[in-house]
């Protein structure tokens, strides 16, 4: 009897340590919602998916680089990351002095974030998926109408250097996901679908022939200034850009979280 008990404990231990290798994920129940910028029907339907509870940390990214040296700072192709890639790191495999292993990774490009997720059998979330999870506060799945929700995000925009804080230091939202607001901005797979052109001076009428469907571009809720900032940032990014306050997390379509469902 005792042996069986001990064996069970061992197996649980084994399982826990293995689970730690793969970052923790939670299931998000899909649904329909109206994003700030929508398609023609305005409503967007999201399928069930799993999302990383925390943004990818410096530690996790370091492990990734050691395994896939082609993403080291000295070896990455210029096509895939600009000159600020991992700017604060001391060397290819060493963080800077002021950086914490448990802080979110930043100064990475879309290409490198995309490669990271692919190597984990996951992918980057779409804008719609990310916004769907991020519109929750502690208790409600959609808190966008609440003043406190917006005030919190705007309050964060005013705080300096939050990218140095540890993951999990902000609130746990309705879906039990941490740090969507309060630490870093996050890459999305289709960030380049935000069709407000990069520079505000280009957004004038005589250039509206720049896009096929420029008439469809309009915000549904102009009061949501915090979200508007996110879209504006995405609109100004290029895939090889790296920013000090821009990190990422991965999601997975399958419920097991390791195998990826073919669409």
């Amino acid at each position, binding site marked *: 009897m005792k042996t069986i008990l001990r064996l069970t404990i061992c197996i649980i*231990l084994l399982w826990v340590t*293995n689970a*730690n290798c793969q970052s923790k994920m939670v299931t998000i129940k899909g649904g329909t919602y109206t994003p700030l910028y929508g398609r023609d029907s305005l409503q967007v339907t999201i399928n069930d998916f799993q999302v990383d509870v925390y943004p990818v940390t410096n530690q996790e990214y370091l*492990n990734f680089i050691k395994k896939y040296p082609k993403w080291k700072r000295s070896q990455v*192709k210029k*096509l895939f990351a600009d000159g600020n890639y991992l700017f604060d790191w001391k060397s290819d495999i060493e963080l800077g002095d002021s950086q914490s292993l448990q802080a979110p990774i930043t100064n990475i490009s879309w290409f490198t974030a995309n490669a990271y997720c692919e190597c984990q059998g996951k992918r980057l979330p779409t804008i719609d998926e990310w916004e769907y999870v991020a519109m929750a506060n502690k208790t409600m799945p959609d808190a966008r109408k609440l003043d406190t929700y917006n005030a919190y995000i705007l309050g964060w925009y005013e705080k300096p250097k939050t990218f140095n804080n540890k993951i999990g230091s902000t609130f746990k939202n309705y879906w039990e996901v941490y740090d969507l607001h309060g630490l870093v901005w996050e890459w999305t797979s*289709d960030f*380049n*679908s935000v069709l407000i052109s990069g520079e505000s001076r280009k957004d004038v009428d005589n250039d509206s022939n720049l896009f096929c469907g420029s008439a469809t571009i309009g915000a549904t809720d102009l009061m949501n200034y915090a979200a508007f900032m996110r879209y504006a940032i995405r609109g100004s990014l*290029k895939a090889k850009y790296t920013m000090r306050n821009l990190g990422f997390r991965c999601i997975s379509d399958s419920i097991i979280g390791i195998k990826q469902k073919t669409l």
Partner: protein
Amino acid sequence: MKYFNSILILLVIVLSHTSCEESKRVNNTDVVTVYQCPMKCEGKKTYHASQSCPICNMDLKLVENQTSKEVSDNEISDESIFNLTTNWTTEEGETIQLKNLKGKTLVMVMIYTTCKAACPRLVADMRNIESKIPENSLGNLQFILVSIDPETDTPKRLKEFAKENFMDKKHWTFLQGTVSGVREFANVLAVKYKQISPMDFSHSNIISVFNTQGELIHQQEGLGVDNKETVQTILELTK
């Protein structure tokens, strides 16, 4: 029995930890530092330690890019689009990678064939550029039209589109990719696009010119804009 149990527990714990360790192992093969005299007194000779050049006595400089040591004809630069390794299908049904296009000057644009508004004009812009290139330069040139709607634009559909628009000659290529491959490629070109309904996309209208090494040389943005500069760039590249 008790001993056996404790040993078993220990073993399992150790084992479970090593499974994590595996990914932390440092790869030894990737860090080889090489130094070279900044004046290249001894040609391409390199050293493995930071010392001074035996001829001019200057401090040796760290050679940054290791891969460039193996110089060969297949070498492509860091900024070349030939670094992308996704597979594409042409309108003829061939599977290719972008590096198969190496050696020709490339003029690229992203379109989709069901587009009613901007794409016909964008296609017309491409044909206008073509008409300004002398016949004998066309052999060194490839016009590439990449579909942003890989689900609808099958090779068959692209071939029909090519015929309809008199773009079926050898120097025109149409490419169908995968959803993620197209997203990646658009990111390289800084083209933005979004599906706004099952049949419609909005997208930025950018024509990009690449040299024979796959490096981006020139981008023309907008519809029906003056293509003088683009044509000039192409002519210089195909000289």
